[in-house]
C-alpha cells in the first residue's frame, strides 16, 4: 500500500498538478485569443468596458447580488467555495509536502481552524447537494454529473479529515490516505477539462459575453450550412419563435440577432 501512496503523492501528483496548472493557463489563453479574434472580426467595436469590469468584480462575490433572492443558497455556496480553496492551500501537512519537494513553504492555518474549515466544506457541500436534489427547478436543469461533482469533491475532504483526526490504527490511516490522495489527484486532473474549469473561466464570462459574442456578419449561415441546414434561416429553429417575430423577418439574413 505504501507504494501506491508514494505513487499518488509523487509522479501522479506531479502529473495532475502540472496538467491542472498548464491546462488552466491554456484555456485562459485560448479564451482570450478567441475574444481578441471575435473583437477584431466584428463590425461593432463598441464595448461597455466599465460595465464589464463592474459585473466581473461584482460576480466574484455573488453574495451581495444573490442575497435578496436566495440568501441561504448564496451564503452556503460562498462558504463552500472559500473553504474548498483555502483549506488545501494552507493546510500544514500539504505545505510540508511542498517543502519536501521544492523547498518552498508558506504560512499554515492553525490546525483547529483547518479542521473547522474542512467540516464546513463537507457540510456546505452536502447542503448544496441536497438543495439540488430537493428543489424541482434545480433538478430540472441538472445533469447526472452535477450530482456526482459534490460527492467527488467531498471525498478528499472527508477522508482527509478522518485520516488526520481520528486516532485509528496506522493501517486505517493509510487506507483513508490512499482514497484521499487518489480522489484529490483525480479532481486536479479533471479541473481544466470539465466544468470545474469555471475556477478560471468564471471571471472571464462577462468579458466573453460582451466582446466575443459579436458574430461577424453571416457567421450563423456558415455554421448552419456546415450542419446541413443551409436551406433554413439559422435563427428560426423552432416553430414557436415564428409567432413572435414580425412577418418577413426571415429575409433579412440570420446573423443580425
Amino acid at each position, binding site marked *: 500500500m505504501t507504494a501506491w501512496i508514494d505513487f499518488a503523492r*509523487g509522479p501522479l501528483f506531479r502529473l495532475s498538478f*502540472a496538467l491542472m496548472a498548464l491546462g488552466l493557463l*491554456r484555456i485562459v489563453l485560448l479564451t482570450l485569443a*478567441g475574444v481578441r479574434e471575435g473583437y477584431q472580426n466584428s463590425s461593432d467595436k463598441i464595448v461597455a468596458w466599465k460595465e464589464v469590469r463592474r459585473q466581473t468584480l461584482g460576480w466574484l462575490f455573488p453574495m451581495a447580488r444573490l442575497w435578496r433572492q436566495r440568501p441561504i443558497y448564496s451564503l452556503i455556496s460562498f462558504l463552500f467555495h472559500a473553504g474548498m480553496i483555502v483549506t488545501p492551500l494552507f493546510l500544514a*501537512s500539504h505545505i510540508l509536502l511542498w517543502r519536501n519537494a521544492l*523547498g518552498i513553504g508558506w504560512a*499554515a492555518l492553525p490546525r483547529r481552524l483547518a479542521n473547522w474549515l474542512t467540516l464546513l466544506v463537507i457540510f456546505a457541500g452536502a447542503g448544496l447537494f441536497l438543495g439540488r436534489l430537493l428543489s424541482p427547478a434545480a433538478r430540472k436543469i441538472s445533469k447526472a454529473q452535477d450530482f456526482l461533482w459534490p460527492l467527488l469533491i467531498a471525498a478528499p475532504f472527508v477522508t482527509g479529515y478522518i485520516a488526520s483526526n481520528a486516532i485509528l490504527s*496506522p*493501517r486505517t*490511516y493509510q487506507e483513508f490516505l490512499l482514497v484521499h490522495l487518489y480522489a484529490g489527484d483525480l479532481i486536479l486532473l479533471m479541473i481544466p477539462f470539465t466544468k470545474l474549469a469555471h475556477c478560471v473561466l468564471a471571471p472571464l464570462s462577462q468579458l466573453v459575453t460582451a466582446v466575443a459574442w459579436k458574430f461577424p456578419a453571416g457567421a450563423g449561415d456558415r455554421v448552419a450550412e456546415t450542419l446541413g441546414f443551409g436551406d433554413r434561416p439559422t435563427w428560426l429553429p423552432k416553430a414557436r419563435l415564428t409567432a413572435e417575430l414580425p412577418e418577413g423577418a426571415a429575409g433579412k439574413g440570420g446573423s443580425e440577432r
Partner: protein
Amino acid sequence: MDRVVRLKLVLWVMVGLAAAIATARFAFGLGATTHLSDATPWGLWVGFDVMGGVALAAGGFVVTATVYIFKMEEYHSIVRPAVLTAFLGYVAVVVGLLFDLGLPWNIWHLTIYWNPRSPLFEVGWCVMLYLTVLMLEFFPVPTEGISALASLRRFLLTLRIPLVILGVALSTLHQSSLGSLFLIMPYRLYPLWYSPLLPVLFFISAVALGLMMVILESHVTAYLYRRKPETGLLAPLGAATRWVLAVYVAARFGDLAARGQLHYLASGAWQAKLFWLELALMAILPLALMSATRFRRQAGWQGAAAAIGVAGVVLNRIDVGGLADIGRGGPLYAPKWTEIAVSLGIVAAATLAFLFMIEHFRVWESRPADPEADPRKLPEFDKVGFTWLGTPAVAGRVKYSLGFVFAAGAGFALLGSPLAARQGSVPAPVHRARGDAGYLRSGVSEAASLGQPGELPRGVLYIDGDLTRYGVTFYHQREIERNGREKSCVLCHHMNMPHDQDSGCYACHRDMYQKSDASRHDWHASPHGANLACVECHEPGYARTSAHVKPCADCHKNLVPAGATIEIPNYNAVSYVDAMHEVCNGCHVKVAAREKKPEIARCAECHKGRLNFSDTRHYLYSPHAPAGRLVILPPPKVSEVH
C-alpha cells in the same frame, strides 16, 4: 488532419516535454537532471545541439556565397530558406548552449573578460558575430510589409555583399574552430578521429553538409506543402556536393595514411565499425548516389542521398564530441532521456519557427497555402464530444496546445524529484533505546519492579531513536511475560549482529527515515574495518552487485536466531520508523482483532503522553523542527554561507 498539422502536433508535443525538463534543469541544475558529471561535462548537448547544429547551419554561407559572390543567380530562390535555416540553426545552438552551460547567466562574460588563447573564446565570438550577420541578412524578409522599417531594409540591402563576405569568413573560422577545439585533447579522442587536420576536415564536411541540407530542406518542405520538388534546380548542387565529398574522403584517408593510423581501420574495435558506418553515411553513400546522373535527377533519390549525408555528418560531430570516446579513461556516459528530449525539443521548436516563417512571410517566392487558414475547409468537430472546435486555425491551436500541455505534464511526472536528487536528504541517525538493560541477562522470568517516581522502572525501555525527547515507553518485561517468555525474543530480535545476541533495532535500522545498508558494505571493504578484497564476497567474473555475492551466513554463523519469522529479502534494512511500525503495530493489530480490543491498534496506544498524536504533528510541522524528518531544507542563502 493535413500532414503539416500532424507534423506540428508532434513537434508541439516534443516542445512540451522539453519545456518541462527545461524548467527542472534551470531550477535545480545539471546534476539533478542529466547524466553529465565532472568527468563527462560534455555530452549529447555539446555533440548534437552545438556541434551538429552549427554544422547543419552551414547551408547559409554556402548558398549566399554561391549566389552573391559566384553570381549564380539561378539559385536565388533558395537563398532565403537557406539563410532562414542557418539563422534558426544558430539560435538553436545558442539555446542548446544555454542548457549546457553550468552558469548560463554568465554567458556575457565572453564579451568583457577576454581570453584570446582559448579555442572556446573563438567559438563563442564566432557564434555571436555570425548570428548577428544572419539576423541582418534575414531581417528584410519578415519586415517586408512594415513601411516604418523600409529605410532600414534598404540600408541593409545595400550592405548585402559585405554581409555575405563577413558571413563566409566567420563561418569558415567557426566551422573549423569547432574542430580546433578538439586539437587540445589528443589523448581523449580515438586515433581514427583525432587529427591535426581536424579543423580542415570539419570545414570541408560543413560545406558538403550545407549543400545537402539545402537539398533535404527543399524536399521535406515540398512534401509537406505539396509543392513540386525543385529537383532540376537542385541537381547541379548535388553534382557540386559530390566533388566536395570526394575531397573529404581523400583528405580523411590521406590524413590517416600520413599519420600511420590506417591499421586501426581493420582492428575490429567497435570504434572502427563506427568509423566505417559514419563514413559510409556522410560521404560514400551520398557520393555514390550523387555521382549517378539518374539518381541525382530523381526527386526521391536526391532527397534520400541528402538525408543520408546529413545524418552521417551529424553522427560525425557526435562521434568527435564524445561518442567515440566512451569508456576511454572516464566513467561510462550515456545520455539520460532528459538530454535526448531537450535536444529533440530544441530541434522541434526551430522547425516550428521555420514553418511559421514560411507560412507567414515571403521566404519562398510565394507563400504556401496555410493549411490552417483555408477558407473552404469545413470546421472541425471534436470526435469524442462532438464539440465544435472552430475554424481550422482555431482547431489547430486547440490541438497543439493540448499536445503541449499533456507532454509537459508527462515530463513533470517522469522527472522524479530533482530537488532530492540534488540535495539528498538529511540523515537522521538512530540511537539505542534508553532504560534498564541489565536485567535482561539476570533472568527473564523476574517480574518487573517499579522504580522511584521520575525514574524508569526495571524492565522498561524508553524508545526515542532520534533523541528528540518524544519517544515511546516500551514495557519490555511485560511483553516478554505476555508473549511466551524465552520464545518471545525472536518476535522482535529477528536478526543479530555477529558475536551478539538480541541486538537492538538501532544496530541495523540506522536511520530514522531512510533505508540503511544492513551488511555495512563500506565497513567490510575499508582497511579500518574488515579489510576485505572485493572478490572475497563478490564472485569473480560477474558484475559486483547483490546478484552474485556470498550470503552473510557463509562467514557469520547464527545471524538469524532459530524461530525468527521475519524474512529479510535483501541487504537493505528498512527505516527505523517503518521497522517500529511494522513490528510493534503488526503485533498490536493481530491482538486487537483476536481480543476484540480495537483501541490497542490505534496510534495513540504508543504515541501518548508527551508524544500524543496531535502533539507530534504540531511538533513536526513547526518551523523549529530539527532536521530529523525526511525534510529537504531549502538551499542556504548566500549570506548564511559566508
